[in-house]
């Protein structure tokens, strides 16, 4: 019997708000332990939660960015469970009335066909504290760090529309892009700002039954999500073939062993509404205001890049996948750089250079205006491509204009025929063998001579003019 997998994802995204969800403490989990705490996020008796407007807005933008429908009424419930990382015994989460319903992401499946993966709902919740396990002499102890307690999270719960590791990975990549676009989170699985649980069940291909699902946690990259799902599909298929029953439980992914392992079940029951957290009522005006703050989303932007700037589909998707890159690209065009030049130099030169230096397109000192200046000098033949790469490196190190760098460091291209004439004559004199080869029709030798001339000019010769002069002198055209 052939099996197919039925997969749904639950994705926790930590919002990049300045403060926590229900208090004004800084939302910086990485600080010195228990530095960012107050009675509210220590969950002390007598403290009251105060919903952050910023968190609500960032969560709202995230929902709209994923095509979800913001609900006019949503509310927080107490999700009861006991664990030392949640010493108040319940987590505030929107169990009954989530912030949004619906939405989804379009991906290409393995065969290249478009496929829509639907979102069931998105809700807000508070993060729990972090446990640190240490040894005190020979006694194992657990310490609790409340910096993360009460950090603003949203949970995106999908429909079970996924059939393969490919679906899950494509969905997560697109989700990450879209959430970064609206500016609500970095969505980094490596840094823990995006955490993914996968619910996986299998059934005979072609049937529509819903079988017992297994939850898999603890993947810390999108790649691992794919690996864990693939492993789990194999494990369940083998179990069913061997006549074993699949039971509802949770498994942890072990990236070193590349396998999932059973984890002890966590007790969870129905949630009770929290009478001390006001119901959230979103007016039509609020929802409209949020919608107007939504940037152009990546799919729409890629389509516009193709139509407006003549990019290929692949180029457009690449440039629009990071909002800062997309904005940078269009800034170059606004400065008068040709779209293809901008695309080429961004993708092959500038972005790798920016990443190498740990900067981002939005905050690099090589602003679009400075970089455009450089590219325009190149297109006006004032410098050649070699020189442009070197000038770019200087742009990172000083705040001089590209024009000033070119002038001060002598990068200006030599296009003066008389000057080049004597250079070429000297090279031809020094390389009689190569000259003979060219005359005998060996074009490779022409390239060698080109290189010699460029070298002799210190890389500054205008290659177009050198090529013309060489051809004339050697009579090859």
């Amino acid at each position, binding site marked *: 019997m052939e099996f197919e997998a039925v997969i749904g994802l639950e994705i926790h995204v930590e919002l990049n708000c300045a403060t926590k969800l229900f208090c004004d403490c800084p939302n910086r989990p990485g600080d010195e332990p228990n530095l960012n705490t107050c009675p509210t996020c220590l969950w002390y008796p007598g403290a009251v939660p105060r919903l952050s407007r910023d968190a609500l807005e960032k969560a709202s933008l995230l929902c709209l960015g994923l095509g979800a429908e913001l609900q006019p009424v949503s509310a927080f419930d107490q999700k009861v469970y*006991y664990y030392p990382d949640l*010493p108040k015994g319940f987590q505030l989460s929107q169990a009954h009335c989530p912030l949004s319903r619906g939405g989804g992401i379009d991906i290409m499946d393995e065969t290249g066909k478009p496929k829509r993966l639907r979102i069931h709902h998105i809700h807000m919740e508070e993060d729990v504290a972090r446990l640190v396990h240490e040894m005190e002499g020979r006694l194992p102890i657990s310490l609790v760090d409340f910096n993360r307690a009460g950090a603003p999270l949203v949970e995106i719960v999908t429909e079970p529309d996924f059939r393969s590791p490919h679906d899950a990975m494509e969905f997560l990549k697109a989700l990450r892009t879209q959430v970064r676009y609206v500016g609500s989170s970095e969505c980094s699985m490596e840094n823990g700002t995006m955490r993914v649980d996968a619910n996986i069940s299998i059934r005979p291909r072609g049937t529509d039954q819903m079988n017992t699902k297994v939850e898999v946690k603890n993947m810390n990259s999108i790649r691992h999500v794919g690996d864990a799902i693939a492993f789990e599909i194999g494990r369940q298929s083998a179990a069913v073939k061997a006549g074993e029953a699949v039971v509802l439980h949770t498994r942890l992914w072990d990236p070193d062993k590349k396998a999932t392992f059973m984890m002890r079940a966590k007790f969870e029951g129905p949630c009770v509404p929290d009478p001390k957290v006001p119901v959230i009522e979103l007016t039509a005006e609020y929802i409209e205001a949020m919608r107007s703050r939504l940037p152009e989303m990546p799919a729409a932007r890629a389509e516009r890049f193709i139509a407006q700037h003549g990019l290929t589909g692949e180029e457009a998707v690449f440039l629009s996948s990071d909002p800062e890159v997309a904005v940078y690209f269009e800034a170059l065009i606004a400065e008068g750089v040709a779209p293809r030049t901008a695309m080429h130099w961004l993708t092959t030169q500038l972005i790798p250079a920016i990443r190498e230096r740990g900067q981002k397109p939005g905050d690099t000192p090589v602003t679009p205006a400075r970089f455009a200046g450089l590219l325009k000098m190149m297109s006006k033949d004032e410098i050649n491509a070699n020189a442009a790469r070197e000038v770019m490196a200087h742009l990172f190190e000083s705040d001089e204009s590209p024009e000033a760098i070119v002038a001060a460091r002598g990068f200006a291209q030599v296009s003066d025929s008389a000057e080049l004439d004597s250079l070429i004559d000297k090279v031809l004199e020094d390389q009689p063998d190569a000259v003979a080869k060219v005359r005998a029709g060996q074009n490779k030798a022409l390239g060698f001579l080109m290189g010699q001339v460029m070298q002799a000019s210190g890389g500054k010769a205008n290659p177009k003019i050198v090529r013309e002069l060489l051809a004339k002198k050697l009579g090859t055209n």
Partner: protein
Amino acid sequence: MESIFRYRNPDTAGASGGPLQGVNIAIQPNVSVEGWPTDAGSKALVNFTALEDATIIRRLREAGTAVCGSTRMSEFGFGLDGSRAGEALKENAADVEMVLDLMGESRLAASRASVCGFKPSYGLVSSLGLIGLIPSMECWGLLSADIDRIRRVLDTISGPDPLDFSLPDEPAPDFSARGIKPENTSIGVISEAVSGLSSDSKNAFQASVDELKQAGFSVRELSLPDMALFSLVHNIVGSVEASSCAGRYDSVRYGRRAPGARNWNEMYLLSRGAAFGTLVKSYLFQGAYFQFERYAAYEDACRIRARLVADMRKLFDKADFLIFPAAVGGRFGQAASLAATYEQFAATLFANVTGQPALYLPPAPGSKAAGFQLAGPRRSDARVLALGEYLLNLRQEGNV
């Protein structure tokens, strides 16, 4: 005998020149005061000291009151078992007492001390710093022999608090006393609220109603057929909320950790097991049962609650105020079981279910009338207090 105070404040000076200068107020240890022991009467919170002042404490101090200490209370203020509420007034150790009212505790404590006891409208007073048990039912009640003092204290502590988002978006109420004119004021008696009384109690209540008639008020008989459901709704909703919310009283971060556990899970279980008293423990068990095994019953109770609130509101189309007896049955000091506790508060818990204001008025000395409660619609606090004051003045003038 053990002191009526759980904690006595060595430094009672409030701001000088405030409107409540010279008013001595006793609170309970469920009000957060920075540096005071705030165990809310529970072993689960032994050694817990609040990190910040409740909003009401800040307001009381700014108004010039002397907060003289906290009186001993029942565990989390639930019921009156072990509570010394009202005794500070009797012994002239305070002018006003603040007593958490979850099912009528402030009003029954007032009846025990023969003073006035007022439970304000839900959502009138900031709950920042309240260490409570049933968030949707409870609020601080005020006890005093003098209704004007209750009014002035309430005026001081009520109104919007930028630190408590749970308060409804309503302006601060106006407490300037309004004149009560008996000839155009009607008072309703809900027949179902009286039908369960013993014949003695019925006679005593009737004497109170006669007192109103004699004063010139028109008294109307009204009906609320589901009156008996208040207790059921309070019991189910209250216990589920308590069970869920009391998670933070884990007896691990504060309180005492039970020794001898083999792992953290066992340590939590043993510590919580040792921390709570029988009454609260049975309440939490019951709440957990409804939450996890009978959730639909909890949802039904919430729906019935909404209906009861609407039914009660409709009665005020027919009367300006309602009069209720103060106690149906049960005696103090014997309420160890949940059933007995609910029986004891059967006459008062309606106001916690609906969130409406209710005032206990003690009987006139030597009168054969019983103490009773006056209630109005939500946010009619000033008028309920004005009516109570009017009746007390009549007695003083010897007109009743």
